[in-house]
């Protein structure tokens, strides 16, 4: 039932590294009925290679969830999208819902925020895992049932879980079931939207480990959106920091967390309680900009302690493997 893949862009076809997710110049606007429009994602480029584990970091409202929803075409009707998203070589946005449906679950799956509500309360867990396989024509019902059992074992749940209802499971079990569900159609990319909120700390760690492990064993690209820096540290090789709908920093997780280059990342890290470090918390002064008003220049300038004249122009990502969007960095560079 795989649809004919759209012609992959030449840029990718020519490259040796195979990227499964190619987001280019992505914009998302939310149009309110009164004519106002919130510009939630303001030009994001993101390329994820097969098997790569990427953590997207940012405060709530920074557009990180919107970005991954856009990547699967899951935006509401009042949203407008610009730019392009290629998933496994398929142009997701080209023909709206129709093209988006071609990649869903079969090429990219998603583990949603809030395991509590991500599953339909009135269907048994097994059915919810198995149904997509049948709907996408990948397996017969019996095969799907068989595969469901395997998936449950894979995520560390007893196969009897299939016969339970979501509400009968604990939070951790439920999130495992959700992950099993996401793996059902063997996607190449797994998006995880705050997969561990509302879970207790020990379970959070387990789920994070599970995701990382699965990504490695199955060769999945994992794109995890979270505001939990610890989670990124444990699960992702690469960290992307977003602020006000743009990527402000992108690099190897270790580098980003230990040597942040963007002032926002720095402040974010300082504002975050990290267990093994004992120092006073600093909150970032000011509030994020309103997205329903045009932002010119660097969105962070208003809150940035290092802001200067150049910040009136929008900065570009600069750097080699560890990039950041800040005029201050350009100045630091030797001319």
């Amino acid at each position, binding site marked *: 039932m795989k649809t004919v893949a759209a012609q992959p862009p030449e840029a990718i076809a020519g490259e040796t590294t195979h990227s499964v997710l190619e987001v280019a110049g992505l*914009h998302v*606007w939310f149009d309110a009925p009164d004519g106002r429009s919130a510009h939630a994602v303001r*030009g994001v480029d993101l390329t994820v290679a097969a098997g790569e584990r990427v953590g997207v970091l940012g405060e709530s409202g920074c557009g990180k969830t919107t970005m991954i929803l856009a990547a699967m075409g899951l935006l*509401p009707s*009042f949203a407008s*999208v*610009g730019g392009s998203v290629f998933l496994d070589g398929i142009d997701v*946005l080209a023909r709206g819902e129709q093209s*988006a449906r071609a990649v869903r679950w079969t090429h990219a799956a998603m583990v949603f925020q809030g395991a509590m509500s991500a599953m339909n309360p009135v269907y048994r867990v097994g059915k919810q895992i198995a149904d997509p396989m049948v709907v996408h024509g990948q397996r017969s019902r019996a095969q799907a049932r068989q595969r469901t059992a395997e998936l449950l074992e894979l995520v560390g749940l007893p196969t009897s879980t299939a016969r339970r209802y979501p509400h009968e499971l604990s939070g951790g079990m439920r999130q495992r079931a959700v992950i099993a569900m996401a793996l059902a159609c063997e996607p190449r990319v797994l998006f995880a939207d705050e997969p561990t909120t509302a879970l207790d700390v020990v379970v959070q760690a387990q789920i994070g480990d599970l995701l990382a492990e699965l990504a490695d064993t199955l060769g999945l690209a994992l794109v995890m959106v979270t505001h939990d820096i610890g989670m990124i540290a444990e699960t992702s090789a690469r960290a992307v920091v977003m602020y006000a709908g743009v990527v402000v920093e992108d690099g190897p997780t270790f580098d980003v967390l230990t040597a942040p280059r963007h002032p926002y990342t720095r402040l974010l890290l300082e504002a975050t309680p990290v267990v093994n470090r004992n120092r006073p918390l600093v909150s970032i002064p000011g509030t994020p900009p309103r997205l329903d008003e045009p932002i010119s220049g660097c969105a962070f300038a208003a809150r940035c302690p290092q802001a200067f004249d150049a910040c009136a122009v*929008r900065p570009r990502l600069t750097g080699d493997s560890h990039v950041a969007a800040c005029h201050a960095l350009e100045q630091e560079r030797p001319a």
Partner: protein
Amino acid sequence: MRLARALLHRPTIVAGIVIVMLFTVVALLAPVLEPYSVKSASGEPFAPPSATHWLGTDDAGVDMLSLVIAGAQNSMLVGFAAAFVAVLIGGTLGIFAGYKGNWGETTVTGVTDFFLVIPALPLMIVLAALFGQTIYHIVLVIGLLSWMSVTYVVRAQVHTLKERGFVGRARSLGAGDFFIVRRHILPHVAPLLVAQTVLTVASAVFFEAALAFIGLGDPARVSWGTIIENAFLHSAVSAGAWWAIVPPGICIALVVLGSFLVGQGVEEAMNPRLGSAHVSPKSFSLRRATAKDEA
């Protein structure tokens, strides 16, 4: 009060209130507005609408417009009075149950559940037949069987108020129950009570018409229900006298519609989740980013 202001911003609520108010004004001014007496004939029986009788006449030659206006008076009286009774009972029980909790709540819920189960109209019929058919009895009968939903709505609201911590704070400052209810609960429940009153007015008007139709209306008073019943009894429809039956029906429908708009609006206002559907026939749209967007 903030809730009240939020409610007044919704066009459906405003439209509903305007409709109900309009009929209330007509009801209040009925004696002035009636062009003819409703007790005696002022034209030929079943005379069609004309310049002298805008809505024609009924089987006895009584002016229909006057009847509809006089009907407004009694229908709205039954509506408001019964709603008042219902909201008084339902509001008191709801506040009591929500505020007291525990056994108080259990008792009230049990009683309310019981009354919810009893089919209202059959019991109203029995009671109206039992009490005798004066307008006061009709008001009582309808009011005594219409308070249940008020209880539930109010109770739920009081619960959320309690959760918001008002009550605990007030109590820690040494306020008594009565004081807390009067100063902290009532003002917050008031808009809800008003909305429930409007809703109950509609159902009371509806029930009055139903009782009248079965012949249990107050024979000494004209209401929209008795006008319809009268048209039935005198086969107005076969006589082709649509004007003798259509106007009261439309009046009832408008009042019900008006109060329903209010109810619907309040529900939408109190339940902001509505309107964020995850699926719709229309998908997201595509837009090209401009230079300004990239700036």
